């Protein structure tokens, strides 16, 4: 699903260079559940952003679903984000002016899908995350856990193969966080590839692999990782 080789991401502020990613290799098989952990500032978010085509690496090659994304135009990258990847943010990032249903419909709207079907699908997805009662509510009227469930439904709207979460439970209490993780686990059982950054120790039990990051690199690549590279 993901093949990333020698990824670097260098931020230059004035004369100081920050290597947020330092020649990282990262492979994820179809259907895998990978958790990434590490201290603050070690480059976890940077890695996810680069993998999700939200940001571009300074060097290295990445292919998503066998598509080499290095030479793709901005428009093509947007389409990959739209159709192949469902991104879940730590801070939910719902559009404040739209209600839950419309937020879930949004990626389908960008895909130009038929209106009746999109609202039907959005409703089904909201039902799946147990938000069917709150479809007409704006994000400001929802709790953090509820917003995150809407955000998960939104990430699923174009039926992506890859779900990426950057500390999706980071802003939630442990009980709500556990519920969100349970949804992600179920999505993985359905066959979707899941990559999450999380500090939640319980995730170690559910994920196929837990990778530890430090200073823009993995420190304890697990056996599966080694097998692939």
């Amino acid at each position, binding site marked *: 699903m993901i093949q990333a080789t020698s990824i670097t991401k260098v931020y230059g502020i004035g004369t100081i260079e920050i290597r947020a990613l330092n020649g990282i290799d990262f492979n994820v098989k179809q259907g895998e559940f990978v958790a990434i952990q590490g201290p603050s500032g070690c480059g976890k978010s940077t890695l996810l952003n680069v993998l999700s085509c939200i940001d571009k690496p300074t060097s290295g090659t990445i292919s998503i679903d066998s598509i080499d994304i290095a030479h793709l135009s901005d428009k093509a990258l947007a389409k990959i*984000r739209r159709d192949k990847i469902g991104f879940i943010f730590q801070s939910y990032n719902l559009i404040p002016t739209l209600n839950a249903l419309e937020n879930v419909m949004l990626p389908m709207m960008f895909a130009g899908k038929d209106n009746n079907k999109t609202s039907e699908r959005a409703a089904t997805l909201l039902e799946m995350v147990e938000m069917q009662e709150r479809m007409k509510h704006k994000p400001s009227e929802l709790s953090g856990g509820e917003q995150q469930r809407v955000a998960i439904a939104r990430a699923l709207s174009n039926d992506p193969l890859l779900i990426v979460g950057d500390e999706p439970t980071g802003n939630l209490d442990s009980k709500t966080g556990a519920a969100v993780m349970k949804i992600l686990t179920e999505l993985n059982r359905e066959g979707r590839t899941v990559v999450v950054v999380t500090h939640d120790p319980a995730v170690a039990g559910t994920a196929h692999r837990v990778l530890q990051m430090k200073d823009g690199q993995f420190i304890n690549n697990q056996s599966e990782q080694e097998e692939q590279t």
Partner: protein
Amino acid sequence: MRILNKIRLAYRNLKEHKLRSFLTLLSIAVGIAAIVSLIIIGQSMVQAVGERFEGTVDIIRVLPGHVIPGRDFVSYGSFTEEDGEAVKEIAGVADVSSWMIEIAEAGYEGRFAPVELMGGDPADIGRFLGGAVQLKEGRLIREGATREAIVSASTLKHLNRWLEAELKVGDTLTINGVDLTIVGIMAYDLAALDVSHRVLLPKETAREITQSDNVMLMLVRIDDLARVDEIEDQIEELLDERHGVTGLTTATSVEGLLGRVETVFLIIQAFVIGIAFIALIVGGIGIVNIMLISVIERTREIGIMKAIGATSEDVLYLFLVEAATISLIGGLLGVLAGVAISAVVSTFISGFIIADMPLIIGPDVLVGGLIIALVTGIISGLYPARRAAKMRPIEALRHE
């Protein structure tokens, strides 16, 4: 993305900032209202004036004297019937109708009012005065009748005020001792001929009343409109010569008058529409301003949309549709206000300038108003929308 969804999202954003959106669309509405009302009124006036002149474009009006435009008329005497015969000989002249114009005193039940009599061949009323004579009530003077007269609605009003009467069709007025029955009332004054507050009556009767046969007005029908200026000059020269004067006879055509009226309208319209366009430009700048603020405020939102798969084009069109929606609503309000303003202004015009002016509200004006508003909105939205579209998703997402 489908256009309906873009409109839906744009509408959500506008609703979020109701006052701001309203103020912006107001400036567009003001500009559009000004343009729409001016065009409606201008078209209605030109049309109304044109109608009054209908059937008289090929008529040259000849006066025995010098006209100081808008102010005075200094006569050197009067024409004779022979003058009319001479004018008829000029090439291009089809027919000549001579009219007496005299001051007289109209009496009714012991009260008196000054009137100007306009005496001519009853058959010439229809033939030479054309669309200027639109009967509101009654009928024209019968051929051969001698005791009949017609007046305009405003002349009748003037008479009734002086005579403290309520004269109507069928009533009898005494002019210098001769009883005349009012057989018809014209809707309009003979504006085309610069004639107002006059009583139209057969020439014979006018002669009888005034004991004179001075022809004070000649109406000349020509059969070659292209040569109207040339024929005017020839008439003036001929009559100057016959009366031993130079440059005093005045011949004017309705065609020329109509042209002047239209020119004046065009100048006024161009001037006020210029102001309206300035209002539109101000409105457009308002949209640019509001949209730029909106783009900056929504940077994070733009980042989110891009992160979940919006292309730059999606974002561009989203903001363009938003600008277009504001301006279209503004345009709609402007068109409605413009129609309302024209309706109000036309009642004033109908009361004071052109009697019973019908409003002409063509679909072209309404649609045109909306299109101008829309174009203003889209042009103004272009720069802010491009700025939004060009944002990089990762940077926009980081924006707080």
